[in-house]
């Protein structure tokens, strides 16, 4: 009996070995490939961020593949479009995890979408690095397998309003925000500084998402006598607001938030956009780091993709670098558990596009350093102020 059991055990062991030495316990990895999945808005207005972020992921992946891949395995990028529709984000994430069977996830659409998909990510346990829309809910409380590269919207606004308040003491303030979770976050950040610094707010507007004409809103702002203005739109809204202010012949000191800090916006604002302040945690393209990044990206992406590069490309690139480095540190047989452990050990990883990135035990948010920039209409660029 014992002899038969021993033979059976040997046969079982042999059959297991026969599967091949490269088979890992977790999906998305073969002898030659590692799959990384992503779901982004690739159609509709938010494609501006989704496409750019995916280009950043592609640049980091192309760079790693050109250097031989992750310990000899080439990285394959599986990208799904959610059209910025939450139900499609959930569907897309389930698809890339369950059907494409990717090894890790990256990016993941907007703030609302990544919040909605969190239970799916948590339940699956897949290593995930989120980089597009950092909001507190994604890292508070910390989830074992979900890491976030960036800075919170609220901190960004607080930093910007503090800067503008210190630079313009005793001035009258105006604010306009969008009527959604993004707008609420902007308003919360603004209100905390108003309370702390006792700012004199003379105009506070709240526009409906999708609004395109801001003539009456800006007329109200003018009528209020506001001297410092926080334009809480995203892209087209901020352009429309600045052009209305130009039409009304007023030019308050204006601050915008990073989702709208993309260079084509300045071209559309024209002279009205000159001198506006912005806050961000990625390097401006006009600086040395920005130029170096563009040089690096040029041979790695198509001409059309190169034209689609914006600040979200930098956030995507940085997140992908961190994820790839963590998988790489796991050696020849990476697993989810090892990748998560290595992500947690991430310490001062240099990406060249933002301050060094670190996580830690129980720390799932990289908490990037912020900087203030100012628009220069002549060169259509943002330049660091601090």
């Amino acid at each position, binding site marked *: 009996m014992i002899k038969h059991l021993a033979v059976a055990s040997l046969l079982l062991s042999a059959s297991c070995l026969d599967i091949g030495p490269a088979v890992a316990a977790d999906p998305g990895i073969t002898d030659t490939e590692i799959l990384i999945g992503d779901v982004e808005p690739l*159609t*509709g207005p*938010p494609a501006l961020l989704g496409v750019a972020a995916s280009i950043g992921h592609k640049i980091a992946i192309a760079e790693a593949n050109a250097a031989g891949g992750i310990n000899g395995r080439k990285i394959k990028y599986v990208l799904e479009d959610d059209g910025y529709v939450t139900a499609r984000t959930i569907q897309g994430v389930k698809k890339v995890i369950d059907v494409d069977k990717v090894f890790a996830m990256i990016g993941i659409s907007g703030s609302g979408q990544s919040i909605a998909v969190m239970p799916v990510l948590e339940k699956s346990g897949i290593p995930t690095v989120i980089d597009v829309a950092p909001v507190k809910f994604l890292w508070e409380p910390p989830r074992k397998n979900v890491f976030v590269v960036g800075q919170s919207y609220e901190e960004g606004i607080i930093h910007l309003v503090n800067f503008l308040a210190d630079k313009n003491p005793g001035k009258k303030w105006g604010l306009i925000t969008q009527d959604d979770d993004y707008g609420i976050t902007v308003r919360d950040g603004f209100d905390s500084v108003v309370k702390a610094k006792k700012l004199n707010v003379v105009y506070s507007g*709240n*526009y409906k998402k999708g609004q395109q004409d801001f003539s*009456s809103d800006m007329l109200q702002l003018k009528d209020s006598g506001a001297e410092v203005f926080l334009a809480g739109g995203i892209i*087209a809204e901020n352009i429309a607001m600045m052009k209305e202010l130009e039409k*009304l012949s007023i030019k308050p000191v204006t601050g915008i938030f990073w989702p709208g800090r993309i260079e084509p916006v300045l071209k559309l604002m024209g002279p009205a956009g000159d001198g506006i302040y912005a806050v961000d945690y990625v390097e401006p393209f006009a600086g040395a780091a920005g130029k170096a990044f563009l040089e690096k990206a040029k041979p790695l992406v198509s001409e059309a993709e190169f*034209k689609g590069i914006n600040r979200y490309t930098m956030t995507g690139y940085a997140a992908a670098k961190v994820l790839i480095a963590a998988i790489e540190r796991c050696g020849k047989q990476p697993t989810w558990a090892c990748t998560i452990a290595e992500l947690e050990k991430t310490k001062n990883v240099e990406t060249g596009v933002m301050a060094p990135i670190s996580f830690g035990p129980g720390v799932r948010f990289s908490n990037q350093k912020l900087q203030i920039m100012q628009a220069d209409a002549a060169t259509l660029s943002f330049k660091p102020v601090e």
Partner: protein
Amino acid sequence: MQYLLQLLISGLAIGAIYGLIAMGFAVIYKSTGLVNFAQGEMTMITAYIAWTISTTVSGNVFVVAVGAILAAVVLGLVIERLVMRPMLGEPVFATVMVTIGLAVILRSAINFIWDAYPHGLELGMGRGIVHLGGIGVRTGQLAVIATLLLLLVAIWAFFRYSKVGVAMRAVAADDRTALLMGISATRVHALAWAASSVIAGIGGVFFALSYDLSPAMFQLGLKAFPATILGGLDAVLGSGLGGLLIGITENLAGGYLGSGMKEVAGFAMIIVVLMVRPFGIFGERDIERV
């Protein structure tokens, strides 16, 4: 007073754009009895084509205008021939669903053909600011108001005096009798789609000139649709005027009641008007004899 005048002028300018797109809705409804839910997307496509012409062929305003009008005609005719004509005789619900599907496809086409970045339509005119009695207004905004007024007169004359216009009215009134009179309903439908595409496209081009071009532009259709309902779905001229009313109402509400009321005001007005006149201010009451 200046505050009020500024609100009125801005309201007229955006209202003229709504009005043009609303007329597009009405032309199709009047001729085919169909509500085209892809009107905003068709408007956006024409504006993007105008921008492409301006950046690749010539920035000359006449070249862009002629090119955009021709493109809008082709767009309308292609949609009618390939998408709408096969639906002739099918239930209205199915046909309306087809226009919704078409809207999604056209919206996605923007990212596939162009990109998600906002663009400015530079024609060397329309962006300048003039001051009328101290009120700042862009020349493009004045031009769109004038264009709407001219088109209102031209369309009134077209339906009243031209043979084709009378044929379109005949098909709208009773397509079977019109057929017996030798009028080709399919040809009238094709013409309606082409005309609707051009009129709404003009609105789109003016919007791109005064504001900018972005994949969110299709939402203009959502603002123009209430204007059509307000003016009367079967009233082309009424829809144009409905656009002006919506634009002014929105701006007055936004200026006096606050930003949040701006988007609500137009719809609130529609509810009130439809309670009194269910067929719109200028629409015709359906009379059924039993």
